[in-house]
């Protein structure tokens, strides 16, 4: 295998590794603009669900949903659903990297190591 080919392969692999890792890194930002509204009861569960709702609205916004629509979308979920959503919105299947994605990442990393480091 000649050197130029090796170099090209290496570059391609490095770039693809970056692309894949960027796909997995998602920002789970919590929006400060969401004021907790309508908590008349001081019960802990109520507070928690409000926090979850704010969190999910913020996550929806981060995923590109219009702020008003995001609030509407969360409104029709039960507390339990909001809680589940807050927990695993990033991981829930909608078209993200899952098991096979990780296999691909490991594979690419192994190839990079093989070509670039282990001469």
């Amino acid at each position, binding site marked *: 295998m000649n050197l130029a080919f090796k170099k090209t392969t290496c570059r391609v692999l490095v770039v693809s590794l970056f692309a894949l890792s960027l796909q997995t890194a998602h920002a789970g930002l919590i929006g400060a603009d969401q004021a907790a509204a309508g908590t008349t009861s001081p019960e802990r569960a109520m507070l928690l669900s409000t926090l979850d709702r704010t969190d999910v609205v913020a996550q929806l916004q981060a995923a590109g949903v219009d702020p008003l629509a995001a609030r509407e*979308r969360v409104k029709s*979920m*039960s507390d339990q659903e909001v809680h589940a959503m807050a927990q695993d919105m990033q991981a829930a299947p*909608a078209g993200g990297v899952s098991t096979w994605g990780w296999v*691909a990442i490991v594979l690419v990393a192994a190839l990079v190591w093989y070509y670039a480091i282990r001469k």
Partner: protein
Amino acid sequence: MQVQATALRQARRLLLAAAVFLLAGCSTLIPQTVGLRTGWPAGVPQQVELAQVPFFPQDEYQCGPAALATAMKFAGAAVQPQALVEEVWLPARQGSLQLEMLAAPRRHGFVSLRLAPTYSDLLREVAAGHPVVVLQDVGMMLPQWHYAVVNGFDYGTGTIYLRSGLNPRQEMPFSYFERTWLAGKYWAMVVTAPDDIPVTATESRWLEALLGLGRSGEHQAAVRGYRAALQRWPESLPAAVGLANHLHASGALEDAAGVLRSALQQYPDSVVLMNNLAQTLSDQGRHADALFVIRKAEDPRNPFAGEVRATRQLIEQRMRGQM
């Protein structure tokens, strides 16, 4: 000769072992399809196809809105996939989350129910005339999530019929369908009108589904849903409370009080019923009756003691205001 016979016996044994392994592998790869072979769900016909289920060919990633529109339109909603894109589509993920799929029909006054993760529940719902929205992983190597609608099946040929993507009548073997469906942990949901309780619904699941409907402010729809629940599970205390609350919210105070009174005959010690009845009576202006009811609910050990106290204070305040 002796050697040959031994070799043959060994080969046979090996073949048998291979066959056992292969079959064992099969049953772990497609456990539910294998289960169906011996245990077809009782009362489900062997062939069903809901031909009336509409079909919306979808754009590239927008199988979520398309599948949802298919199920909702069949349930009676006047809705187009394009309108649903805004409600369930997540631009950053190029797809729709399951929880949002469940939440969207409620905003239109319909109930969405997640099915138990079994083939038999899927088949029973389709046989009962409810097309089922399923989540599949249709990717070859990397996962590619896809929503489709099951609208029929044929046991004889082992085929599932789907409205999927650009294909109005996709035929898929039970086994292959299970592989694609298993990846999403057998996720499936149905959309129904509030008074049409799915056959596989349990009391708690249906009431949970109605909670979401009530939250979205669809009081009339919630009233229909709770009425249906009370018809099917007449003993249900939460259904009575839910029905009364939504009657109250839609302004039918007299009906709400009636529901609470008849529920109190079944559950005379329920503090929740007493508290809500007192509140309803007071809202009708019958403060003396309300005070009489709320006094019976006073018990400091009850978890709702705080609410009861607040209701009583409100009633007394209103009475003072009248004087």
